[in-house]
């Protein structure tokens, strides 16, 4: 999984990867799978158990998560357990945090505007009385 090691990467590749990751997580079953894998590796059979779904259906969901780089599976092991790629999530958190910071910066400018507004109002009120 390369997304976690961004420095030299093309921005477009990163953006595409994020698009896929977010699209993959838009599905509630896949979010459940991810939540389950956060507790530890599991086979497709394990993952299917709590769901009213066939192993094949779960396998398809796991495949989408694999394509998005969120989950990996060992090639050689017989049970092929699924493993959560935690660093991708670290990268996504960073990205959401950046967006949040933009909003916060905007609102700090609004704080300043409101502070000036308060001063003006006080002056006007002072002049009126």
């Amino acid at each position: 999984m390369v997304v976690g090691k961004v420095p030299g990467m093309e921005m477009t590749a990163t953006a595409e990867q994020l698009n896929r990751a977010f699209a993959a997580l838009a599905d509630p079953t896949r979010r459940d799978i991810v939540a389950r894998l956060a507790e530890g590796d599991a086979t497709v059979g394990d993952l299917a158990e709590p769901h009213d779904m066939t192993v094949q259906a779960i396998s398809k969901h796991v495949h989408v998560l694999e394509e998005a780089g969120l989950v990996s599976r060992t090639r050689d092991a017989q049970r092929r357990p699924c493993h959560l790629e935690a660093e991708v999530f670290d990268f996504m958190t960073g990205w959401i945090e950046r967006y949040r910071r933009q909003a916060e910066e905007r609102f700090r400018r609004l704080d300043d505007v409101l502070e000036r507004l308060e001063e003006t109002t006080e002056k006007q009120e002072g002049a009126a009385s």
Partner: protein
Amino acid sequence: MTLAKHETEILADPDLPTIKIVRDFDARPEQVFRAWIDPDLFSQWIGPRSIETRVDTWDARTGGSWRYTAIRDGEEVASFFGSFHEVRPGERLVQTFTWEGAPDGVSLDTVTFIDLGDGRTRIEELSVVESMETRDAILQSGMDTGVIEGYEKLDELLSRTA
């Protein structure tokens, strides 16, 4: 690095194409509302620092319309337009929002001004778009139209995997 007095919170619903932003301000609802509908005040805070906002049309009444242009180093970089669907002073502002670069897209933005007492106000801004894909694209664009945050379940998960 100082700690923020008020933290902006962003919530992206896991199942609906919405973005909710919550933020508190040290001002009365009427004042915060005014900063939203007075074009001179609005243009002072809406754009990123490197951008100047030029208000082209501004009729802040229920049923009125608005348009503004973002200017960087004297060059127009983006224009946005929409309508003031409802202007309810000090309480609620409902607007449509379109970036002219994506003319088929439209967001319905509702800002609620909640009086917290002691001259403080909480704003809750809810944006609704047409699909999850559009919502995520907005979140990822770094466009400063709305604001964000991640899937609630993902948040939980992230704190566990961090």
